């Protein structure tokens, strides 16, 4: 009996490691492939069969991105502006409503919570069909400010739910003690409770930044001027329009476009992982 159990677990652990290797290869190999293609010359990138390591690594596509194709950096800058703005405002809104949802239970908040959950379900295109004309009438179409507000509304619901799960973890006694000491409601919220949920705030801010950085549909419909385009739409329209792609350049763009969010995520991953889990499981 002992021997069968042993051989069983040997076979089991073989399959375990094989499955792990296959899934991780699927998730990580494409990233390696993009990385090496970016350092290949176009001659080498179009070689068949492909080379698994660049023979003569070059920076040609990076230089061409900086010198000839630098419209990319206009999109890049716009994306940074919009994402930072949305992330910042999202934090403010999430502090307000997250605290309210976690602390005060009344009929209106039940409805408000249901609204937050429901609003994540509607297709973006449905909103855009209407916002396209409404924002046109208000004159805020084709502006980065208008785009940011539309995106803020899209990101706020998840951020609020996430933030409220952090506020819910703060014992109410702390606030009561401060109240007895004569602190007002706003002071309790901002200088006593909020500092205790800093890690949640980091998670909310970065989540909003990542999701806004990823946006395609809002910008595709609400922005028409090339100088105001954001990253995803800019890339899709400018660098994928031609019949034959410059694949080394496309891969370089992929890397430069991903670096900020990867850095941000890995630098704050402790908060992010905790936050994502808390937000999803609560919501």
């Amino acid at each position, binding site marked *: 009996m002992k021997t069968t159990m042993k051989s069983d677990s040997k076979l089991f652990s073989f399959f375990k490691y094989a499955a792990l290797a296959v899934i991780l290869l699927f998730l990580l190999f494409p990233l390696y492939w993009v990385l090496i293609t970016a350092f290949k010359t176009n001659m080498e990138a179009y070689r068949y069969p492909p080379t698994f390591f660049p023979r003569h690594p070059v920076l040609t596509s990076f230089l061409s991105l900086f010198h000839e194709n630098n419209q990319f950096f206009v999109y890049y800058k716009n994306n940074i502006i919009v994402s930072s703005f949305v992330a910042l405002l999202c934090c403010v809104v999430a502090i307000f409503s997250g605290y309210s949802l976690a602390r005060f239970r009344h009929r209106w908040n039940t409805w408000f919570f249901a609204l937050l959950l429901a609003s994540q379900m509607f297709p973006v295109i449905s909103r855009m069909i209407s916002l396209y004309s409404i924002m046109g009438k208000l004159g805020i179409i084709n502006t980065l400010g208008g785009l940011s507000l539309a995106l803020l509304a899209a990101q706020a619901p998840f951020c609020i739910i996430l933030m409220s799960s952090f506020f819910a973890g703060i014992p109410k006694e702390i606030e009561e003690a401060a109240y007895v000491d004569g602190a007002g409601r706003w002071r309790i919220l901002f200088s006593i409770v909020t500092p205790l949920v800093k890690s949640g705030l980091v998670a909310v801010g970065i989540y909003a930044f990542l999701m806004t950085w990823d946006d395609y549909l809002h910008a595709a419909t609400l922005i028409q001027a090339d100088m105001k385009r954001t990253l995803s739409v800019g890339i899709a329209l400018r660098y994928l329009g031609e019949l034959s792609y410059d694949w080394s350049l*496309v891969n370089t763009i992929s890397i430069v476009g991903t670096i900020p969010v990867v850095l941000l995520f890995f630098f704050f991953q402790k908060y992010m992982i905790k936050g994502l889990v808390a937000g999803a499981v609560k919501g």
Partner: protein
Amino acid sequence: MKPKPLSSKRSDTLFSLLLDLPAFLLLLSFIVVPIVDSVIKSFQAYGVKNIITKKPGVWNDFANYLYLFKTDDFVGATLHTFSFVIGVVLVQFLLAILLALILNSNIRGARFMRSVMMTPWVVPTVISALIWMWLFQPQYGLLKYLVSLVTFGHLSDFAILNNPSTALTGVGVAALWKQIPLMTLLLLAGLQNVPQDISEAAMIDGAGKIRRFFSIILPYLSPVIKVSVSMSIIENFKQFPLFWTMTGGGPNNSTTTLAVLSYREAFVGMNLGSGAAITTLWMLMMIAVIFGYNKLFRVQEM
């Protein structure tokens, strides 16, 4: 004077409503009103003319809806959407739970692998489309080479996105690549909440790995599974940039989903009214699916 107690009900509620106000106004003006307005527009003749002249749309006796059923496009798009959602969600769940179980067993470097495997989730959707388009590239792509290698040269022109019968799978692979990490992370967090002692007690009682998985781990995990699967259903139901970048709905409309069809109708053809008809029906389907899904899960829990 004694300070008044903190929980004076009325002022609490007022303060709370004041805090909700910014988010409420935001959601009202950028989500609720636009959704209602788009449903209204779906019953109107509303096109680019109305936008230029700023004239309101006119009621057109369900013409937008009747128009949808004149061709097979809408039915086709519905089928593509559902096959995409079902396929991606199912495969994603199976791979994610497998990966989560492996990472949760005491293997070396699990923490490191957990954080590295999150990278695809952070990659912007349009860029993940580019990455997979390059891997699938019909002349110089890596996949073409690997497939021809594995089939000993029998299949030497593998181009997944150019073939109407495989293109949807091709986009699905890119979606899986981007979404597996988050689901794994959530399931892994759920697994860490499964009490170790119950599982150990069952092991001593002679329950095998499979038995323990189905009668102990799965029940504890079910709330997390419910949430993460429903997040995935919603996300894939709404998926647009992957399709638009990788295939544009082609070849031969084989990847035209409801998202692609409505976008094309509303913003390429500039028939906002009939685009809105598509999104309205799409929205109803999504609500029905989520409703049914929640119901299904409730039955299972009992």
